[in-house]
């Protein structure tokens, strides 16, 4: 808690409802830690707050006046004590938030999304705990086979951050497990709502820092004196970590161009540099502005505000945007500093009168140079912009107002419309010996049932998991009742938990079970499907997508296909060799092929007829990892564009993607 905040004290006997907050806290250098710390006194007025920190986090110095603190491992041990307490997760795209990823799914709560893009968070989680494969799992989950391909592509490139960080935000698991989401900009609010349509997404602007009270009245000359900066020249400042996205080279190029047209200036780069990730020094050198440029390195909170007070103009460019709202910009506005930003992402939402916006595009550099000249050459324009900024911040970003919004959201009844998707429980595949004994223990008509079964490699090779309480299966086949009967009898699936559907019905316009009721998506633990491998390609595409759709995340699909040994179709769409790749494309992983050699000898249990002597059977089992199902057509069909996820319009019309 900062010393400057004036918050009414709460009486110790007041009964407040509990609130568990997962967030970093000072002395962590994270901006989110400061943000949460500033709001904490207000939260503590409203709630009995427990703050959960990472196990390796440095502990706050002021225990007495702060909230109750638990480490993540302590919280896990005592989580039953907090089962009824609402949880709030402050998620940002950096390693200090990795510890929240597990709790987000086990103890869902309100997610405060400080960054829309969480790619680096997952990369960091993998770096911290390689065995967790957090990044790979998240990529697979959010982007299916494209995620898998992308990882392979990234690992083959040196410049992977350019693509990986901004194009794949990797926030699916976080958003979909949230009870509700808080965004600091409309930009993120709309994107999050589109990504997780069942989850309410609230807009709560970034608050005005209480610390500005001390520095807002500080004279520029005093601040410069305390920092050792010259009094006369104009000072243009870029604040925060030095990253590629902050486009410092725009400023260097513009200032080099304007050098003889504007009064003397200093260019201050006020923030920590990480040359291993992005080295700005060569660009300063080549711009010829070495004497005019000052690099401060990391700034403590106090120095940060002094630099804000000392500056004439803040340059706060950001492209591409990870969806983050700049805390630095909010502080600059509240201190009445004129700012230049790109008209893109959350910063583009600010009124035109409050910040100077430069459109991002082909002529961004020229536009920026012109805007910079305008503000540096004409002091009244700077002063007007700064005054507007300060008025806007005081009117809209007051911390008490923001804290009230938080409290309202915590108490709000508006939670997600559907419960978070539950991941299927662990699957237990029986051993071949166990399957053999179960088949033999099945009733006297086993042989007849087995003979009537259109495909039985799935039985012989124990390719389906055992049933159990609360588990449900869908069986799709030409003769689904026979398969369902064997599934129940041998693998212990409860008959009322198995939905049997003919292949024709499963691929119909609406999918309904034998009882005529519509089949829900995402509810089955197992899909057992048997079919001929040479089904038309557009129907295969639909089949794979529907199999994905009916299964819950983590659900198991077992597909058995057959083809004639002397076949008219040379390479059928769902042929044995293609089946694993088809499953991978359809959002499945852990793919296991079964061969007749792996399983029990069915003839010793039930002598076979000779009807299938000219057929070859192949079976594969896989686990649903992603909802992204893709079908790669073998040939581009002339006249049809690449489409993903559109329903089949009419029989014979291709759908899915042509990749």
């Amino acid at each position, binding site marked *: 808690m900062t010393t400057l905040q004036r918050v009414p004290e709460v009486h110790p006997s007041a009964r407040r409802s509990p609130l568990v907050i997962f967030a970093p806290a000072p002395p962590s250098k994270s901006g989110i830690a400061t943000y949460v710390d500033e709001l904490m006194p207000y939260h503590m007025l409203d709630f009995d707050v427990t703050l959960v920190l990472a196990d390796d986090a440095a502990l706050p110095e002021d225990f007495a006046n702060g909230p109750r603190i638990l480490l993540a491992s302590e919280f896990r041990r005592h989580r039953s004590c907090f089962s009824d307490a609402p949880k709030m997760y402050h998620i940002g795209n950096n390693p200090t938030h990795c510890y929240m990823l597990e709790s987000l799914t086990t103890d869902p709560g309100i997610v405060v999304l400080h960054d829309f893009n969480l790619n680096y968070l997952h990369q960091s989680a993998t770096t911290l705990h390689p065995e967790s494969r957090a990044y790979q799992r998240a990529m697979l989950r959010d982007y299916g086979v494209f995620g898998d391909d992308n990882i392979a592509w990234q690992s083959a490139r040196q410049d992977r951050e350019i693509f990986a960080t901004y194009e794949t935000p990797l926030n699916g698991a976080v958003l979909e497990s949230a009870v509700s989401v808080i965004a600091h900009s409309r930009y993120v609010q709309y994107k999050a709502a589109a990504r997780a349509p069942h989850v309410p997404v609230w807009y709560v602007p970034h608050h005005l820092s209480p610390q500005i009270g001390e520095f807002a009245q500080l004279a520029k000359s005093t601040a410069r004196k305390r920092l050792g900066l010259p009094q006369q020249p104009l000072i243009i400042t870029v604040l925060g970590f030095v990253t590629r996205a902050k486009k410092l080279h725009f400023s260097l190029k513009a200032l080099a161009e304007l050098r003889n047209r504007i009064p003397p200036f200093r260019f201050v780069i006020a923030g920590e540099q990480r040359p291993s990730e992005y080295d700005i020094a060569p660009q300063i050198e080549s711009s010829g502005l070495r004497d005019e440029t000052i690099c401060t390195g990391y700034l403590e909170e106090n120095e940060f505000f002094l630099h804000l007070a000392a500056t004439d103009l803040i340059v706060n460019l950001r492209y591409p945007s990870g969806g983050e709202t700049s805390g630095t910009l909010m502080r600059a506005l509240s201190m009445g500093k004129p700012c230049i930003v790109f008209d893109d992402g959350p910063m583009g939402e600010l009124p035109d009168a409050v910040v100077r916006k430069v459109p991002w595009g082909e002529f961004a550099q020229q536009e920026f140079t012109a805007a910079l000249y305008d503000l540096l050459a004409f002091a009244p324009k700077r002063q007007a912009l700064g005054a507007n900024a300060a008025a806007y911040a005081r009117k809209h970003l007051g911390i008490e107002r923001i804290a009230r919004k938080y409290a309202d959201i915590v108490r709000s009844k508006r939670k997600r419309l559907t419960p978070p998707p539950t991941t299927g429980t662990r699957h237990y595949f029986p*051993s*071949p*010996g166990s399957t*053999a*004994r*179960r*088949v*033999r*223990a*099945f*009733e*006297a008509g*086993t*042989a007849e049932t087995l003979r009537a079964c259109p495909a039985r490699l799935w039985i*012989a090779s124990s390719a389906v998991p055992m049933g159990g309480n609360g588990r449900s299966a869908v069986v799709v086949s030409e003769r689904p009742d026979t398969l369902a*009967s064997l599934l*129940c*009898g041998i693998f212990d699936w*409860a*008959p009322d938990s198995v939905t049997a559907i003919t292949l024709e019905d499963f691929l119909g316009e609406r999918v309904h079970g034998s009882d005529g009721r519509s089949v829900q998506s995402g509810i089955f633990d197992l899909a057992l499907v048997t079919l001929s491998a040479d089904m038309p390609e557009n129907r295969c595409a639909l089949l794979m997508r529907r199999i994905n759709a009916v299964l819950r995340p983590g659900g198991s699909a077992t597909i058995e296909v057959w*083809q*004639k*040994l*002397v*076949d008219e179709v*040379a390479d059928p769409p769902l042929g044995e060799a293609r089946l694993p790749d088809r499953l991978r494309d359809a959002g499945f992983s852990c793919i296991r092929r079964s*061969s*007749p*050699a792996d*399983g*029990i*000898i*069915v*003839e*010793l*249990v*039930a*002598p076979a007829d*000779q009807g299938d*002597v*000219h057929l*070859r059977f192949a079976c594969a089992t896989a686990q649903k990892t992603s909802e992204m199902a893709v079908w790669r057509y073998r040939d581009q069909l002339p006249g049809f564009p690449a489409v993903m996820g559109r329903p089949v319009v009419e029989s014979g019309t291709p759908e899915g993607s042509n990749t």
Partner: protein
Amino acid sequence: MRRISSGLAVLNAAPNVLVFSPTPTHRAIQGNRQRVFDMCRAMQSMGAKVTLLYYATEPVSAKDALMMTAAWDAFEVIFPHTLEHRHSLVRHPAIDDWFDEEIAAAISRLVSTRHFDVCVVNYVWYSNLLEVLPPNVVRLIDTHDVFGGRAEKFSEIGLDPAWFHTSVVQEGAGLDRADYVLAIQDEEARLLADRTSAQVVSVGWLSPDDFLPLRKRRAGEPLLVGYLASANPFNVASILNFAAAASNRPDVLEKIEFRVAGPVCDALRPISHPFQLCGIVDSVSEFYRNVDVAINPMLGGTGLKIKSLEAMRYGKPLVATAEAMTGIATHHSGHALSSPEAVLEHLLELATRNSLLAGEASISRDVYRRYREEQLTAFRSLWSGVMASVRSRDGMTARPDHPEGVA
């Protein structure tokens, strides 16, 4: 739930079988491994609980060990005390010369804590372990081959008797320790029946069929002919002979491409030959998937010719000598050729008349199906006898058993 009331009783009353093997079952890259695997799987399919006791004479990877743990109801390993073998007799090792006392100790430990109804010993020279078992355990020896008089048979064709060999009398003494002796083919069963008082039963290859579709040949593409074999002396002699014959037939080599895989490749590397060598392949089925025809130009040899059965198991047209089909009932002329030259002639005909391949593949499938049905019948009969012996020794009269399956 369609479950009979006695279902759980059947599950609980499964006979316990101890299988001793000096070769692992995973990965089944050799004929003997496949044999042990098939017998274990067949017993499991009859409802038995199989404990595999592996005597680690061959290296196995952690992955293979995991697969064995998953495949069998229990998996145990004994590490050899020594791999140096005694040679007690002048001309042969005695029947127990390769027996390791570590095995006896391990068996004693095992039977002191667990009950076994049946014990299967692979290879006759480990039969000594049967002496350690409690008297009520039904004893089987799976012979794999005939080892009594093996040295003499090899020397007749100028080869050294690689691996174990002993005298006919010694082999008989080993076999007498069992209740049932398994031969891999009828001819060997007759031979062994003369050497032992135990009941000799012939059970051949039990692997399920895995018929592959024919490869699509493009116009003008050569016929792809495959041979996959281990480096046993008969295989080596046969392929060298065949290489010599093929080298003299440029007309054949123009239309046919030969691919050789497996350990037998090592024997071909030092000499000039017209074959493409693939070495040890990761997947046997992929090897067969990518050839049009399989061959087995074998001359002489002992035991069952697993190569021939394997090719037919994958549904591939097979061109073989008569000796390569010993123990396999077939009337197809392409399965009874007399020499390497005759094999080459037959292949040439297939290369020029592509339409014949589908018919030859169909013959392979039929021959294999018939062969396997016979072996499954023999196995059912054997198991029936074994279970009867178990019941009589346990004094049990109503132990649940389904020797004929549930049909």
